[in-house]
């Protein structure tokens, strides 16, 4: 009876009645991932950290927060962890919300637990936003380099970007100067005219190139303008060159320099870390694209009339994201570490905002009197960075088919 059933099923296989147990790619990867205990531990810590950071933001934010990280109680300074507050010297609103100083207090009597909560949010946002910026830039440039790699950059293209870029930036500068009231619009008329001219020429060149490119040599190109068609180098050379140049700088010192020049704020830190760490994802995406470009499904999508941008960002990028996802996870850990390092050196998020780095930094002066001031933030950084790295490693093993068989 059973045998007969099997036979009737297999004869229908082509018709699609016999079905393998259906599992999505996510379910398959998840079951693999769950077998990796260290990676699971990383994920659990990551989730806890995420909840604490988001909760910490709401608990420490606003005019009258539940946990005030900036509340100074000079009479309660350098209290050890778990110590009870002195009820006689404090006003009721100055009492810690938990009833005890969970992580002690610092040299100004501020509650370290509240400051850690605020710092967790800073670390989380810096990590995610910086890596977000890096991934967006990296994916974009890597995709362009991989997909259009062999196309040539023409002199016209280069002229366009220089003219357009210069014109627009100079116009903006003039605009800002006038808006700030540092001079009337009349002194700048000449400059505005030159800038507008540059923008118009800059915008005109690509239109010309496209029109001439479409006609495919049926119309003769006017002499003199043919110099715009001079091939300089390929798109790939341009972008990989940019990547190599960026990689030449020791990134921490590049960040230090940039941060020293810009006004200190959490947003500057995010932007600077993001702008200096996109090279890895760009390389991964480029490498993936070089092989994906030759795949049949890309040709098939082209044959369906799908546009290039859609092919790149809808069809190819999702197929190329696996290594980027892994490097981004580890990149978040690196970004958190970089932010802590910058804050420790005093270049990071300015006081009074607390971050793990500057709690650590101010704690080092009391290393022997109040070791919890360095231990608590230091341990937090260690655990979070380790968790992200373990999680990233676990992802790598799941997403890389060559490593799948090891467990």
């Amino acid at each position, binding site marked *: 009876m059973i045998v007969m059933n099997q036979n009737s099923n297999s004869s229908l296989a082509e018709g699609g009645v016999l079905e393998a147990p*259906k599992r*999505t790619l996510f379910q398959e990867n998840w079951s693999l991932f769950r077998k990796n205990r260290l990676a699971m531990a990383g994920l659990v810590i990551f989730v806890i950290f995420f909840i604490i950071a988001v909760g910490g933001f709401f608990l420490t934010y606003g005019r009258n927060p539940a946990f005030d990280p900036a509340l100074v109680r000079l009479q309660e300074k350098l209290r050890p962890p778990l110590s009870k507050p002195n009820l006689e010297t404090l006003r009721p609103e100055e009492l810690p919300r938990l009833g005890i100083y969970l992580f002690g207090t610092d040299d100004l009597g501020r509650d370290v637990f509240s400051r850690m909560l605020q710092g967790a949010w800073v670390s989380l946002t810096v990590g995610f936003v910086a890596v977000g910026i890096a991934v967006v830039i990296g994916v974009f440039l890597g995709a362009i380099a991989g997909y259009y790699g062999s196309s040539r950059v023409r002199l016209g293209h280069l002229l366009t970007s220089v003219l357009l870029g210069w014109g627009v930036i100079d116009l903006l500068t003039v605009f800002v100067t006038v808006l700030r009231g540092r001079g009337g619009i009349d002194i700048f008329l000449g400059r505005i005219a030159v800038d507008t001219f540059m923008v118009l020429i800059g915008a005109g060149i690509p239109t010309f190139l496209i029109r001439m490119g479409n006609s495919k040599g049926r119309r003769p190109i006017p002499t003199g303008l043919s110099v715009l068609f001079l091939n300089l180098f390929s798109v790939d050379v341009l972008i990989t060159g940019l990547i190599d140049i960026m990689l030449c700088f020791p990134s921490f010192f590049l960040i230090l320099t940039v941060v020293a020049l810009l006004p200190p704020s959490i947003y500057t830190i995010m932007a600077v870390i993001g702008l200096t760490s996109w090279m890895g994802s760009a390389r991964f995406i480029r490498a993936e694209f070089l092989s994906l470009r030759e795949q049949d*499904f890309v040709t*098939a999508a082209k044959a369906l*009339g*799908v546009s290039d941008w859609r092919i790149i960002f809808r069809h190819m990028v999702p*197929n190329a994201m696996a290594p980027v996802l892994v490097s981004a996870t580890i990149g978040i850990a690196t970004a958190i570490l970089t932010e802590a390092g910058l804050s420790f050196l005093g270049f990071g998020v300015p006081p009074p905002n607390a971050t793990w780095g500057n709690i650590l930094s101010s704690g080092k002066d009391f290393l022997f009197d109040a070791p919890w001031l360095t231990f608590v933030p230091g341990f937090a950084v260690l655990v979070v960075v380790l968790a992200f790295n373990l999680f990233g490693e676990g992802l790598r093993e799941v997403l890389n088919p060559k490593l799948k068989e090891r467990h």
Partner: protein
Amino acid sequence: MLPKDDLLLSVEDLKVFFHSDGKVARAVDGVSYEVREGETVCLVGESGCGKTVSVLAILGLIPRPPGEINEGKIFFKGKNLLELDEEGLQGIRGKEISMIFQEPMTSLNPVFTIGDQIEEAITTHDAVEKDETGRRTIDLLADVGIASPEQRMSDYPHNLSGGQRQRVMIAMALACKPDLVIADEPTTALDVTIQDQILHLFRELKEKRHMALLYITHNLGVVAEIADRIHVMYAGIFAEVGTVDQIFRNPCHPYTMGLLASLPSRARKGQTLYSIPGAVPDPAYKPQGCPFHPRCTYVQESCRVEFPEMCDFGNHHFARCPIIYRQKKGN
């Protein structure tokens, strides 16, 4: 020539060259053919003789560089496709001419469900409502013979067998009701029973939708099943052109004869299977004169020097072999 009024596609003297390391590979070296409405035209030939390149050129899918269309015109409904820009071509691809590829295993995007991919094929060209797209997707899947299409829509390509994937590819190609479907060896990667099912599906769909089919294969058995007219291709040129009957009953080019002789058949059971001696020439180093002459059993002195003309054997049956022509007409 046949009447022109129902002409859909006409390729005139197409030449596609590939440049690499200073060499020029003449992959397609001057072919002309026509496809009429509702007709099935087959391009037959060995691997590497330029079949695929000659149809990729129609949709502007030749990678440039290294490829380059040197000469020729491709008229589709009176428009020269070679003069269209990328945007114009995108409007044609998938909408009026669509293509099915050889490898169903790799022609679908592994990260999207088949429903998503068919819906994309529809929405790329037709602005339709969301539920309308869903309905059309289910209809298409049912049309290509996929059982329980509603459930299948949410399947990923890796859930499907090779034959089912090829059916999905066909559904995608048919999504916008094209007038011409180009099928590039759609059954080569499938096993024989599935191959037969897919061929039946093609015939059925062609009748139902009145579309033309340009079918590329190296399998003469397949050709006999579905073709109206056959173009036998060798080294970038057409060796012989004719109907199924003309080609199979009265082959007039030594290459066609060789191909037919190398078909396994029951009648010659036990004998060694015939094979044409030699191999297809490297498209960068084609022999002078007739490109087939080093492998030809009818070769004469003139074949080594002169490029043969297309000879008219009557009833739109052409072959590029003056030697056979003289023999047949002499009789």
